[in-house]
Protein backbone atom coordinates (compact mmCIF):
# COMPACT_ATOMS: atom_id res chain seq x y z
CA UNK A 1 0.00 0.00 0.00
CA UNK A 2 2.77 2.44 0.85
CA UNK A 3 4.21 1.65 -2.56
CA UNK A 4 0.94 2.73 -4.14
CA UNK A 5 0.91 5.96 -2.14
CA UNK A 6 4.47 6.63 -3.18
CA UNK A 7 3.63 5.93 -6.82
CA UNK A 8 0.69 8.31 -6.74
CA UNK A 9 2.81 10.92 -5.01
CA UNK A 10 5.43 10.64 -7.71
CA UNK A 11 2.73 10.83 -10.40
CA UNK A 12 1.35 13.96 -8.77
CA UNK A 13 4.75 15.59 -8.70
CA UNK A 14 5.32 14.81 -12.39
CA UNK A 15 1.99 16.35 -13.32
CA UNK A 16 2.74 19.40 -11.18
CA UNK A 17 6.12 19.81 -12.84
CA UNK A 18 4.44 19.64 -16.26
CA UNK A 19 1.84 22.18 -15.09
CA UNK A 20 4.63 24.56 -14.08
CA UNK A 21 6.30 24.12 -17.46
CA UNK A 22 3.04 24.74 -19.33
CA UNK A 23 2.39 27.91 -17.33
CA UNK A 24 5.93 29.11 -18.06
CA UNK A 25 5.41 28.49 -21.78
CA UNK A 26 1.99 30.19 -21.88
CA UNK A 27 3.26 33.36 -20.26
CA UNK A 28 6.42 33.44 -22.40
CA UNK A 29 4.70 32.91 -25.77
CA UNK A 30 2.93 36.23 -25.34
CA UNK A 31 3.73 38.21 -28.47
CA UNK A 32 5.71 41.36 -27.90
CA UNK A 33 7.75 42.32 -24.89
CA UNK A 34 5.79 41.62 -21.68
CA UNK A 35 7.62 44.50 -20.01
CA UNK A 36 6.52 46.92 -22.72
CA UNK A 37 2.95 45.61 -22.62
CA UNK A 38 2.79 45.93 -18.84
CA UNK A 39 4.11 49.49 -18.78
CA UNK A 40 1.79 50.72 -21.53
CA UNK A 41 2.42 52.98 -24.53
CA UNK A 42 3.85 55.91 -22.54
CA UNK A 43 6.84 54.03 -21.15
CA UNK A 44 10.33 55.11 -22.15
CA UNK A 45 12.79 52.50 -23.49
CA UNK A 46 14.81 52.99 -20.30
CA UNK A 47 11.81 52.15 -18.08
CA UNK A 48 11.14 49.06 -20.15
CA UNK A 49 14.75 47.98 -19.86
CA UNK A 50 14.67 48.37 -16.07
CA UNK A 51 11.54 46.22 -15.81
CA UNK A 52 13.00 43.65 -18.20
CA UNK A 53 16.00 43.25 -15.94
CA UNK A 54 13.80 43.18 -12.84
CA UNK A 55 11.64 40.42 -14.33
CA UNK A 56 14.70 38.56 -15.61
CA UNK A 57 13.46 38.91 -19.20
CA UNK A 58 16.93 39.90 -20.41
CA UNK A 59 18.16 36.37 -19.76
CA UNK A 60 17.92 33.49 -22.27
CA UNK A 61 14.75 31.35 -21.95
CA UNK A 62 16.37 28.25 -20.36
CA UNK A 63 17.93 30.45 -17.65
CA UNK A 64 14.56 32.18 -17.12
CA UNK A 65 13.02 28.74 -16.71
CA UNK A 66 15.56 27.70 -14.10
CA UNK A 67 15.05 31.00 -12.22
CA UNK A 68 11.30 30.42 -12.40
CA UNK A 69 11.64 26.93 -10.91
CA UNK A 70 14.03 28.14 -8.19
CA UNK A 71 11.66 30.98 -7.32
CA UNK A 72 8.72 28.58 -7.05
CA UNK A 73 10.75 26.17 -4.96
CA UNK A 74 11.18 28.99 -2.44
CA UNK A 75 7.40 29.42 -2.42
CA UNK A 76 7.68 32.76 -4.22
CA UNK A 77 4.95 33.29 -6.82
CA UNK A 78 6.37 36.57 -8.08
CA UNK A 79 5.42 40.21 -7.70
CA UNK A 80 2.40 41.96 -9.19
CA UNK A 81 3.40 45.08 -11.10
CA UNK A 82 0.02 46.79 -10.85
CA UNK A 83 -0.85 45.93 -7.28
CA UNK A 84 2.77 46.35 -6.20
CA UNK A 85 2.56 43.41 -3.84
CA UNK A 86 3.62 39.76 -3.85
CA UNK A 87 1.28 37.61 -5.97
CA UNK A 88 0.88 35.16 -3.09
CA UNK A 89 -0.47 37.90 -0.79
CA UNK A 90 -2.76 39.21 -3.55
CA UNK A 91 -4.19 35.70 -3.97
CA UNK A 92 -4.54 35.18 -0.21
CA UNK A 93 -6.32 38.53 0.19
CA UNK A 94 -8.89 37.41 -2.36
CA UNK A 95 -9.18 33.81 -1.21
CA UNK A 96 -12.08 34.16 1.25
CA UNK A 97 -14.98 34.90 -1.13
CA UNK A 98 -13.76 32.30 -3.61
CA UNK A 99 -13.33 29.65 -0.93
CA UNK A 100 -16.78 30.13 0.58
CA UNK A 101 -18.41 30.55 -2.83
CA UNK A 102 -16.97 27.20 -3.94
CA UNK A 103 -17.84 25.55 -0.63
CA UNK A 104 -21.47 26.73 -0.64
CA UNK A 105 -21.85 25.90 -4.32
CA UNK A 106 -20.66 22.34 -3.75
CA UNK A 107 -22.93 21.98 -0.72
CA UNK A 108 -25.93 23.25 -2.69
CA UNK A 109 -25.05 21.03 -5.64
CA UNK A 110 -24.72 17.95 -3.40
CA UNK A 111 -27.90 18.76 -1.49
CA UNK A 112 -29.78 18.76 -4.80
CA UNK A 113 -27.90 15.99 -6.57
CA UNK A 114 -27.64 13.22 -3.97
CA UNK A 115 -31.34 12.82 -3.03
CA UNK A 116 -32.50 13.44 -6.59
CA UNK A 117 -29.95 11.02 -8.07
CA UNK A 118 -30.79 8.29 -5.55
CA UNK A 119 -34.54 8.71 -6.03
CA UNK A 120 -34.15 8.78 -9.78
CA UNK A 121 -32.23 5.49 -9.81
CA UNK A 122 -34.65 3.93 -7.35
CA UNK A 123 -37.62 4.75 -9.56
CA UNK A 124 -35.78 4.03 -12.78
CA UNK A 125 -37.75 4.71 -15.96
CA UNK A 126 -40.60 6.38 -14.13
CA UNK A 127 -41.90 9.89 -14.64
CA UNK A 128 -39.63 11.31 -11.93
CA UNK A 129 -36.58 9.65 -13.46
CA UNK A 130 -37.38 10.90 -16.94
CA UNK A 131 -37.95 14.45 -15.75
CA UNK A 132 -34.69 14.36 -13.81
CA UNK A 133 -32.75 13.14 -16.85
CA UNK A 134 -34.18 15.97 -18.93
CA UNK A 135 -33.57 18.57 -16.21
CA UNK A 136 -29.93 17.54 -15.73
CA UNK A 137 -29.21 18.03 -19.43
CA UNK A 138 -30.98 21.39 -19.24
CA UNK A 139 -29.05 22.48 -16.13
CA UNK A 140 -25.75 21.54 -17.77
CA UNK A 141 -26.65 23.79 -20.70
CA UNK A 142 -27.20 26.97 -18.68
CA UNK A 143 -24.28 29.41 -18.52
CA UNK A 144 -23.77 30.09 -14.81
CA UNK A 145 -23.31 33.83 -15.40
CA UNK A 146 -26.68 34.03 -17.15
CA UNK A 147 -28.41 32.17 -14.33
CA UNK A 148 -26.67 34.59 -11.96
CA UNK A 149 -28.16 37.57 -13.79
CA UNK A 150 -31.64 36.02 -13.69
CA UNK A 151 -31.28 35.35 -9.93
CA UNK A 152 -30.15 38.96 -9.37
CA UNK A 153 -33.14 40.21 -11.28
CA UNK A 154 -35.68 38.07 -9.40
CA UNK A 155 -34.31 37.78 -5.85
CA UNK A 156 -32.27 40.96 -5.52
CA UNK A 157 -33.93 43.58 -7.74
CA UNK A 158 -37.60 42.49 -7.63
CA UNK A 159 -37.94 40.79 -4.25
CA UNK A 160 -35.05 42.50 -2.51
CA UNK A 161 -34.23 39.39 -0.46
CA UNK A 162 -30.52 39.40 -1.14
CA UNK A 163 -27.91 42.01 -2.01
CA UNK A 164 -27.44 42.69 -5.73
CA UNK A 165 -23.65 42.50 -5.81
CA UNK A 166 -20.40 43.06 -3.94
CA UNK A 167 -19.16 41.61 -0.68
CA UNK A 168 -20.55 44.11 1.81
CA UNK A 169 -17.60 46.51 2.03
CA UNK A 170 -14.49 46.33 4.19
CA UNK A 171 -16.23 46.51 7.59
CA UNK A 172 -19.04 44.05 6.86
CA UNK A 173 -19.65 41.30 9.41
CA UNK A 174 -19.08 37.66 8.50
CA UNK A 175 -22.83 37.08 8.21
CA UNK A 176 -23.30 40.05 5.89
CA UNK A 177 -20.43 38.83 3.72
CA UNK A 178 -21.96 35.36 3.55
CA UNK A 179 -25.37 36.78 2.62
CA UNK A 180 -23.69 38.20 -0.47
CA UNK A 181 -22.75 34.66 -1.47
CA UNK A 182 -26.25 33.14 -1.44
CA UNK A 183 -27.19 34.05 -5.00
CA UNK A 184 -23.81 33.38 -6.66
CA UNK A 185 -23.47 30.04 -4.83
CA UNK A 186 -26.99 29.08 -5.92
CA UNK A 187 -26.21 29.93 -9.55
CA UNK A 188 -23.03 27.85 -9.49
CA UNK A 189 -24.54 25.05 -7.40
CA UNK A 190 -27.58 24.53 -9.61
CA UNK A 191 -25.48 24.38 -12.78
CA UNK A 192 -22.95 21.94 -11.32
CA UNK A 193 -25.60 19.74 -9.67
CA UNK A 194 -26.34 18.26 -13.11
CA UNK A 195 -23.16 16.22 -13.39
CA UNK A 196 -23.29 14.99 -9.78
CA UNK A 197 -26.92 13.92 -10.21
CA UNK A 198 -26.05 11.92 -13.31
CA UNK A 199 -23.18 10.20 -11.56
CA UNK A 200 -25.18 9.46 -8.42
CA UNK A 201 -27.97 7.95 -10.51
CA UNK A 202 -25.64 5.82 -12.64
CA UNK A 203 -23.65 4.69 -9.64
CA UNK A 204 -26.80 3.75 -7.72
CA UNK A 205 -28.16 1.81 -10.71
CA UNK A 206 -24.96 -0.21 -10.67
CA UNK A 207 -25.42 -1.37 -7.11
CA UNK A 208 -29.20 -1.53 -6.71
CA UNK A 209 -29.40 -4.94 -8.37
CA UNK A 210 -26.42 -6.41 -6.57
CA UNK A 211 -26.75 -9.57 -4.51
CA UNK A 212 -26.18 -7.92 -1.16
CA UNK A 213 -29.02 -5.50 -1.80
CA UNK A 214 -31.31 -8.43 -2.58
CA UNK A 215 -30.10 -10.20 0.55
CA UNK A 216 -30.77 -7.16 2.68
CA UNK A 217 -34.29 -6.96 1.29
CA UNK A 218 -34.97 -10.65 1.68
CA UNK A 219 -34.16 -10.53 5.34
CA UNK A 220 -36.93 -7.99 5.75
CA UNK A 221 -34.91 -4.82 6.11
CA UNK A 222 -36.79 -1.54 5.53
CA UNK A 223 -36.41 0.00 2.06
CA UNK A 224 -34.90 3.23 3.33
CA UNK A 225 -32.19 1.32 5.16
CA UNK A 226 -31.54 -0.92 2.17
CA UNK A 227 -31.15 2.03 -0.14
CA UNK A 228 -29.16 4.30 2.14
CA UNK A 229 -27.05 1.89 4.10
CA UNK A 230 -26.44 -0.97 1.70
CA UNK A 231 -26.75 0.52 -1.75
CA UNK A 232 -25.73 4.16 -1.36
CA UNK A 233 -22.68 3.42 0.72
CA UNK A 234 -21.38 1.24 -2.08
CA UNK A 235 -22.28 3.74 -4.73
CA UNK A 236 -20.42 6.49 -2.94
CA UNK A 237 -16.95 6.18 -4.45
CA UNK A 238 -17.62 7.42 -7.98
CA UNK A 239 -19.92 10.04 -6.49
CA UNK A 240 -17.19 11.31 -4.18
CA UNK A 241 -14.80 11.48 -7.12
CA UNK A 242 -17.13 13.60 -9.16
CA UNK A 243 -17.93 15.86 -6.19
CA UNK A 244 -14.21 16.38 -5.60
CA UNK A 245 -13.47 17.13 -9.22
CA UNK A 246 -16.49 19.40 -9.48
CA UNK A 247 -15.20 21.34 -6.48
CA UNK A 248 -11.89 21.82 -8.27
CA UNK A 249 -13.55 22.78 -11.55
CA UNK A 250 -15.98 25.14 -9.83
CA UNK A 251 -13.10 27.56 -9.62
CA UNK A 252 -13.54 28.19 -13.33
CA UNK A 253 -17.24 28.79 -12.81
CA UNK A 254 -16.27 31.11 -9.98
CA UNK A 255 -14.15 33.21 -12.35
CA UNK A 256 -17.24 34.19 -14.31
CA UNK A 257 -19.72 34.21 -11.43
CA UNK A 258 -17.53 36.50 -9.33
CA UNK A 259 -17.55 38.97 -12.17
CA UNK A 260 -21.37 38.88 -12.44
CA UNK A 261 -21.77 39.54 -8.72
CA UNK A 262 -18.71 41.83 -8.41
CA UNK A 263 -17.25 39.61 -5.70
CA UNK A 264 -13.65 40.54 -4.84
CA UNK A 265 -12.37 36.95 -5.21
CA UNK A 266 -9.56 35.17 -7.02
CA UNK A 267 -11.62 34.93 -10.23
CA UNK A 268 -12.15 38.65 -10.28
CA UNK A 269 -8.45 39.17 -9.65
CA UNK A 270 -7.55 36.97 -12.62
CA UNK A 271 -9.96 38.75 -14.95
CA UNK A 272 -8.65 42.19 -14.02
CA UNK A 273 -5.08 40.87 -14.29
CA UNK A 274 -5.84 39.71 -17.84
CA UNK A 275 -7.33 43.08 -18.77
CA UNK A 276 -4.23 44.81 -17.33
CA UNK A 277 -1.79 42.22 -18.67
CA UNK A 278 -0.46 41.63 -15.17
CA UNK A 279 1.36 38.43 -16.14
CA UNK A 280 2.80 37.52 -12.72
CA UNK A 281 -0.73 37.43 -11.27
CA UNK A 282 -2.13 35.34 -14.16
CA UNK A 283 0.80 32.97 -13.82
CA UNK A 284 0.47 32.66 -10.04
CA UNK A 285 -3.30 32.13 -10.14
CA UNK A 286 -2.98 29.45 -12.84
CA UNK A 287 -0.35 27.61 -10.81
CA UNK A 288 -2.24 27.74 -7.52
CA UNK A 289 -5.56 26.65 -9.04
CA UNK A 290 -3.99 23.79 -11.01
CA UNK A 291 -2.12 22.72 -7.86
CA UNK A 292 -5.40 22.66 -5.91
CA UNK A 293 -6.94 20.48 -8.62
CA UNK A 294 -4.01 18.06 -8.58
CA UNK A 295 -4.06 17.94 -4.77
CA UNK A 296 -7.82 17.27 -4.65
CA UNK A 297 -7.30 14.47 -7.18
CA UNK A 298 -4.60 12.98 -5.00
CA UNK A 299 -6.77 13.42 -1.92
CA UNK A 300 -9.62 11.52 -3.56
CA UNK A 301 -7.30 8.62 -4.39
CA UNK A 302 -6.13 8.51 -0.79
CA UNK A 303 -9.73 8.69 0.40
CA UNK A 304 -10.48 5.53 -1.58
CA UNK A 305 -7.85 3.71 0.42
CA UNK A 306 -9.54 4.76 3.61
CA UNK A 307 -13.21 4.23 2.81
CA UNK A 308 -13.12 1.19 0.56
CA UNK A 309 -11.55 -1.97 1.95
CA UNK A 310 -11.58 -3.44 -1.57
CA UNK A 311 -9.04 -0.90 -2.77
CA UNK A 312 -5.71 -2.36 -1.79
CA UNK A 313 -2.54 -2.11 -3.76
Amino acid at each position, binding site marked *: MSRYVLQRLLGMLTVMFTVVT*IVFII*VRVAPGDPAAVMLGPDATPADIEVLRVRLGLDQPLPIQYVYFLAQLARGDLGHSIFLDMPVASALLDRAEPTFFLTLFAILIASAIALPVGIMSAYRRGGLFDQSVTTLTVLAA*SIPSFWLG*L*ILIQVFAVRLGWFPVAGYGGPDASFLTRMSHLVLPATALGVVSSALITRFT*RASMLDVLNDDYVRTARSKGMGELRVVMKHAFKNALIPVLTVIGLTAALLVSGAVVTETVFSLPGVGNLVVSAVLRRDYPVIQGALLVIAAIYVLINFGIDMLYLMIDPRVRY
Partner: protein
Amino acid sequence: MAAVSSAGVDTPRISTLILQRRTLAIGLAVIATITLLAVLAPLIAPYAPNKLSIVNRLKPPSTTWFFGTDEFGRDVFSRTIYAGQLSLLVGAAATTLAAVVGITLGIVAGFFRKADGVVSRIIDAMMAFPDILLAIALVAALGPSLATVIIALGIVYAPRLARVVRASTLVIRELPYVEAARALGVPTWRIMTRHVLRNLVSPILVQATFIFAYAMLAEAGLSFLGVGVSPEVPTWGTMIASGRQYVGQADWVTIFPGLAIILTVLSLQLVGDGLRDLLDPRLRKDL
Protein backbone atom coordinates in the same frame (compact mmCIF):
# COMPACT_ATOMS: atom_id res chain seq x y z
CA MET B 1 -10.57 -5.23 -45.80
CA ALA B 2 -11.75 -1.66 -45.88
CA ALA B 3 -15.06 -2.55 -47.49
CA VAL B 4 -16.41 -4.43 -44.53
CA SER B 5 -18.22 -1.50 -43.01
CA SER B 6 -19.57 0.05 -46.18
CA ALA B 7 -20.93 -2.65 -48.47
CA GLY B 8 -22.64 -5.99 -48.27
CA VAL B 9 -23.87 -5.59 -44.72
CA ASP B 10 -27.59 -5.44 -44.22
CA THR B 11 -28.12 -2.44 -41.96
CA PRO B 12 -31.22 -0.28 -41.54
CA ARG B 13 -31.08 3.15 -43.15
CA ILE B 14 -29.46 5.88 -41.09
CA SER B 15 -32.56 8.07 -41.28
CA THR B 16 -34.67 5.29 -39.72
CA LEU B 17 -32.13 4.79 -36.97
CA ILE B 18 -32.08 8.50 -36.17
CA LEU B 19 -35.85 8.85 -36.12
CA GLN B 20 -36.14 5.90 -33.76
CA ARG B 21 -34.19 7.86 -31.19
CA ARG B 22 -36.25 10.72 -29.94
CA THR B 23 -33.52 12.69 -28.21
CA LEU B 24 -31.23 12.49 -31.22
CA ALA B 25 -34.00 13.51 -33.62
CA ILE B 26 -35.11 16.44 -31.45
CA GLY B 27 -31.51 17.57 -30.86
CA LEU B 28 -30.69 17.45 -34.57
CA ALA B 29 -33.88 19.29 -35.50
CA VAL B 30 -33.22 22.09 -33.01
CA ILE B 31 -29.56 22.54 -33.89
CA ALA B 32 -30.42 22.48 -37.59
CA THR B 33 -33.06 25.17 -37.05
CA ILE B 34 -30.66 27.36 -35.06
CA THR B 35 -27.95 26.96 -37.70
CA LEU B 36 -30.42 27.78 -40.44
CA LEU B 37 -31.62 30.91 -38.60
CA ALA B 38 -28.03 32.04 -38.16
CA VAL B 39 -27.00 31.36 -41.75
CA LEU B 40 -30.12 32.97 -43.18
CA ALA B 41 -29.95 35.90 -40.74
CA PRO B 42 -29.53 38.50 -43.53
CA LEU B 43 -32.82 37.29 -45.06
CA ILE B 44 -34.75 36.78 -41.83
CA ALA B 45 -33.62 39.64 -39.60
CA PRO B 46 -36.15 42.49 -39.74
CA TYR B 47 -33.40 45.05 -38.97
CA ALA B 48 -29.67 45.36 -39.52
CA PRO B 49 -27.91 44.04 -36.38
CA ASN B 50 -26.05 47.31 -35.77
CA LYS B 51 -28.80 49.75 -36.78
CA LEU B 52 -28.94 52.36 -34.02
CA SER B 53 -32.18 54.04 -33.03
CA ILE B 54 -31.73 55.96 -29.81
CA VAL B 55 -35.42 57.02 -29.69
CA ASN B 56 -36.37 53.36 -29.48
CA ARG B 57 -33.88 52.37 -26.78
CA LEU B 58 -34.82 49.62 -24.28
CA LYS B 59 -38.26 48.98 -25.77
CA PRO B 60 -39.91 45.79 -24.46
CA PRO B 61 -40.71 42.86 -26.78
CA SER B 62 -43.61 43.62 -29.13
CA THR B 63 -44.74 42.85 -32.64
CA THR B 64 -42.36 45.54 -33.93
CA TRP B 65 -39.37 44.19 -32.00
CA PHE B 66 -39.92 40.49 -31.20
CA PHE B 67 -37.22 40.42 -28.51
CA GLY B 68 -37.31 44.16 -27.68
CA THR B 69 -34.46 46.62 -28.23
CA ASP B 70 -31.17 47.20 -26.41
CA GLU B 71 -29.60 50.32 -24.91
CA PHE B 72 -28.82 51.71 -28.36
CA GLY B 73 -32.23 50.88 -29.78
CA ARG B 74 -30.84 47.95 -31.76
CA ASP B 75 -33.25 45.08 -32.44
CA VAL B 76 -32.43 42.24 -30.03
CA PHE B 77 -34.04 39.59 -32.28
CA SER B 78 -31.94 40.57 -35.30
CA ARG B 79 -28.81 40.73 -33.17
CA THR B 80 -29.54 37.34 -31.59
CA ILE B 81 -29.79 35.52 -34.90
CA TYR B 82 -26.77 37.38 -36.34
CA ALA B 83 -24.77 36.60 -33.19
CA GLY B 84 -25.57 32.93 -33.78
CA GLN B 85 -23.29 33.04 -36.84
CA LEU B 86 -20.21 33.93 -34.83
CA SER B 87 -21.06 31.85 -31.78
CA LEU B 88 -21.61 28.74 -33.90
CA LEU B 89 -18.53 29.50 -36.00
CA VAL B 90 -16.31 29.78 -32.92
CA GLY B 91 -17.75 26.55 -31.51
CA ALA B 92 -17.31 24.64 -34.76
CA ALA B 93 -13.82 25.96 -35.48
CA ALA B 94 -12.61 25.31 -31.93
CA THR B 95 -14.02 21.77 -32.07
CA THR B 96 -12.32 21.10 -35.41
CA LEU B 97 -9.00 22.34 -34.08
CA ALA B 98 -9.40 20.30 -30.89
CA ALA B 99 -10.20 17.26 -33.04
CA VAL B 100 -7.16 17.63 -35.27
CA VAL B 101 -4.75 18.16 -32.36
CA GLY B 102 -6.46 15.70 -30.02
CA ILE B 103 -6.75 12.85 -32.54
CA THR B 104 -3.14 13.23 -33.65
CA LEU B 105 -1.79 13.29 -30.10
CA GLY B 106 -4.05 10.47 -28.97
CA ILE B 107 -3.23 8.11 -31.80
CA VAL B 108 0.51 8.79 -31.55
CA ALA B 109 0.42 8.22 -27.79
CA GLY B 110 -1.60 5.04 -28.24
CA PHE B 111 0.76 3.69 -30.85
CA PHE B 112 4.21 4.61 -29.66
CA ARG B 113 5.10 3.71 -26.11
CA LYS B 114 7.94 6.24 -26.01
CA ALA B 115 5.72 9.13 -27.03
CA ASP B 116 2.99 7.96 -24.68
CA GLY B 117 4.90 8.91 -21.53
CA VAL B 118 5.36 12.52 -22.60
CA VAL B 119 1.96 12.98 -24.26
CA SER B 120 0.05 11.46 -21.35
CA ARG B 121 1.82 13.71 -18.84
CA ILE B 122 0.97 16.75 -20.95
CA ILE B 123 -2.67 15.63 -21.22
CA ASP B 124 -2.89 15.12 -17.45
CA ALA B 125 -1.33 18.50 -16.75
CA MET B 126 -3.55 20.32 -19.27
CA MET B 127 -6.63 18.80 -17.69
CA ALA B 128 -5.58 20.14 -14.30
CA PHE B 129 -6.51 23.65 -15.46
CA PRO B 130 -10.17 24.63 -15.34
CA ASP B 131 -11.21 25.16 -18.98
CA ILE B 132 -12.25 28.81 -18.80
CA LEU B 133 -9.18 29.76 -16.80
CA LEU B 134 -6.77 28.13 -19.24
CA ALA B 135 -8.64 29.74 -22.14
CA ILE B 136 -8.41 33.15 -20.45
CA ALA B 137 -4.67 32.73 -19.91
CA LEU B 138 -4.11 31.63 -23.51
CA VAL B 139 -6.16 34.49 -24.91
CA ALA B 140 -4.23 36.87 -22.67
CA ALA B 141 -0.94 35.46 -23.93
CA LEU B 142 -1.90 35.44 -27.61
CA GLY B 143 -3.77 38.76 -27.57
CA PRO B 144 -7.58 38.90 -27.70
CA SER B 145 -9.20 38.35 -31.10
CA LEU B 146 -11.66 35.99 -32.75
CA ALA B 147 -8.82 33.77 -34.00
CA THR B 148 -7.09 33.51 -30.63
CA VAL B 149 -10.36 32.60 -28.91
CA ILE B 150 -10.73 29.74 -31.39
CA ILE B 151 -7.11 28.65 -30.94
CA ALA B 152 -7.34 28.88 -27.14
CA LEU B 153 -10.54 26.82 -26.97
CA GLY B 154 -9.10 24.32 -29.45
CA ILE B 155 -6.05 23.84 -27.23
CA VAL B 156 -8.16 23.65 -24.07
CA TYR B 157 -10.41 20.88 -25.39
CA ALA B 158 -7.84 18.89 -27.39
CA PRO B 159 -6.70 16.83 -24.35
CA ARG B 160 -10.24 15.51 -23.80
CA LEU B 161 -10.27 14.02 -27.29
CA ALA B 162 -6.67 12.90 -27.04
CA ARG B 163 -7.51 10.93 -23.91
CA VAL B 164 -10.45 9.13 -25.55
CA VAL B 165 -8.50 8.40 -28.75
CA ARG B 166 -5.45 7.16 -26.83
CA ALA B 167 -7.50 4.78 -24.70
CA SER B 168 -9.31 3.31 -27.70
CA THR B 169 -6.10 3.07 -29.73
CA LEU B 170 -4.45 1.06 -26.96
CA VAL B 171 -7.26 -1.50 -27.25
CA ILE B 172 -7.54 -1.58 -31.02
CA ARG B 173 -3.80 -1.92 -31.70
CA GLU B 174 -3.84 -5.31 -29.95
CA LEU B 175 -6.75 -6.68 -32.01
CA PRO B 176 -6.01 -9.58 -34.38
CA TYR B 177 -6.80 -7.66 -37.58
CA VAL B 178 -4.25 -5.00 -36.73
CA GLU B 179 -1.73 -7.72 -36.03
CA ALA B 180 -2.66 -9.31 -39.34
CA ALA B 181 -2.17 -6.02 -41.16
CA ARG B 182 1.20 -5.65 -39.49
CA ALA B 183 2.17 -9.18 -40.47
CA LEU B 184 1.24 -8.37 -44.06
CA GLY B 185 3.74 -5.53 -43.94
CA VAL B 186 1.27 -2.64 -43.98
CA PRO B 187 3.18 0.49 -42.96
CA THR B 188 2.44 1.88 -39.50
CA TRP B 189 0.97 5.21 -40.69
CA ARG B 190 -1.43 3.27 -42.88
CA ILE B 191 -2.47 1.04 -40.01
CA MET B 192 -3.02 4.14 -37.92
CA THR B 193 -5.24 5.90 -40.42
CA ARG B 194 -6.98 3.02 -42.18
CA HIS B 195 -7.35 0.39 -39.50
CA VAL B 196 -7.37 2.27 -36.23
CA LEU B 197 -8.76 5.70 -36.98
CA ARG B 198 -11.73 4.33 -38.89
CA ASN B 199 -12.81 2.36 -35.88
CA LEU B 200 -12.55 5.42 -33.72
CA VAL B 201 -15.08 7.47 -35.65
CA SER B 202 -17.96 6.90 -33.23
CA PRO B 203 -16.24 7.78 -29.95
CA ILE B 204 -14.65 10.80 -31.65
CA LEU B 205 -17.97 11.98 -33.04
CA VAL B 206 -19.69 11.67 -29.67
CA GLN B 207 -16.89 13.45 -27.82
CA ALA B 208 -16.66 16.17 -30.48
CA THR B 209 -20.37 16.94 -30.10
CA PHE B 210 -19.93 17.50 -26.37
CA ILE B 211 -16.81 19.59 -26.98
CA PHE B 212 -18.83 21.72 -29.39
CA ALA B 213 -21.33 22.32 -26.58
CA TYR B 214 -18.65 23.13 -23.98
CA ALA B 215 -16.76 25.38 -26.40
CA MET B 216 -19.90 27.42 -27.03
CA LEU B 217 -20.47 27.82 -23.28
CA ALA B 218 -16.83 28.78 -22.79
CA GLU B 219 -16.91 31.28 -25.65
CA ALA B 220 -19.97 32.91 -24.13
CA GLY B 221 -18.14 33.08 -20.80
CA LEU B 222 -15.02 34.64 -22.35
CA SER B 223 -17.05 37.18 -24.31
CA PHE B 224 -19.06 37.98 -21.20
CA LEU B 225 -15.87 38.66 -19.26
CA GLY B 226 -14.65 40.91 -22.05
CA VAL B 227 -11.48 38.89 -22.57
CA GLY B 228 -12.64 37.21 -25.79
CA VAL B 229 -13.87 38.82 -28.98
CA SER B 230 -14.25 42.60 -29.04
CA PRO B 231 -17.37 43.81 -27.19
CA GLU B 232 -18.71 45.47 -30.36
CA VAL B 233 -18.87 42.15 -32.19
CA PRO B 234 -22.29 40.62 -31.53
CA THR B 235 -21.99 37.15 -30.01
CA TRP B 236 -24.43 35.78 -27.45
CA GLY B 237 -21.83 36.33 -24.73
CA THR B 238 -21.11 39.98 -25.60
CA MET B 239 -24.86 40.69 -25.88
CA ILE B 240 -25.43 39.39 -22.34
CA ALA B 241 -22.41 41.36 -21.11
CA SER B 242 -23.69 44.65 -22.51
CA GLY B 243 -27.25 43.99 -21.31
CA ARG B 244 -25.98 43.29 -17.82
CA GLN B 245 -26.34 46.90 -16.64
CA TYR B 246 -30.04 46.87 -17.51
CA VAL B 247 -31.01 43.80 -15.49
CA GLY B 248 -34.24 44.56 -13.66
CA GLN B 249 -34.97 47.37 -16.10
CA ALA B 250 -34.78 45.72 -19.53
CA ASP B 251 -34.36 42.02 -18.85
CA TRP B 252 -35.07 40.99 -22.44
CA VAL B 253 -31.66 42.24 -23.52
CA THR B 254 -29.99 39.45 -21.50
CA ILE B 255 -32.75 36.82 -21.46
CA PHE B 256 -32.98 36.13 -25.19
CA PRO B 257 -29.30 35.66 -26.03
CA GLY B 258 -29.10 33.49 -22.89
CA LEU B 259 -31.97 31.33 -24.11
CA ALA B 260 -30.21 31.04 -27.48
CA ILE B 261 -27.10 29.68 -25.74
CA ILE B 262 -29.13 27.27 -23.60
CA LEU B 263 -31.12 25.96 -26.57
CA THR B 264 -27.99 25.44 -28.68
CA VAL B 265 -25.96 23.76 -25.93
CA LEU B 266 -28.97 21.66 -24.92
CA SER B 267 -29.57 20.41 -28.45
CA LEU B 268 -25.87 19.62 -28.90
CA GLN B 269 -25.90 17.59 -25.69
CA LEU B 270 -29.02 15.73 -26.82
CA VAL B 271 -27.29 14.95 -30.11
CA GLY B 272 -24.22 13.74 -28.21
CA ASP B 273 -26.28 11.51 -25.92
CA GLY B 274 -28.30 10.19 -28.85
CA LEU B 275 -25.21 9.51 -30.95
CA ARG B 276 -23.59 7.66 -28.07
CA ASP B 277 -26.60 5.35 -27.79
CA LEU B 278 -26.86 4.94 -31.54
CA LEU B 279 -23.22 4.32 -32.38
CA ASP B 280 -22.12 2.32 -29.41
CA PRO B 281 -24.84 0.45 -27.54
CA ARG B 282 -22.16 -1.05 -25.31
CA LEU B 283 -21.43 2.34 -23.80
CA ARG B 284 -23.34 3.12 -20.65
CA LYS B 285 -26.70 4.59 -21.45
CA ASP B 286 -27.40 5.50 -17.89
CA LEU B 287 -24.84 8.21 -17.55
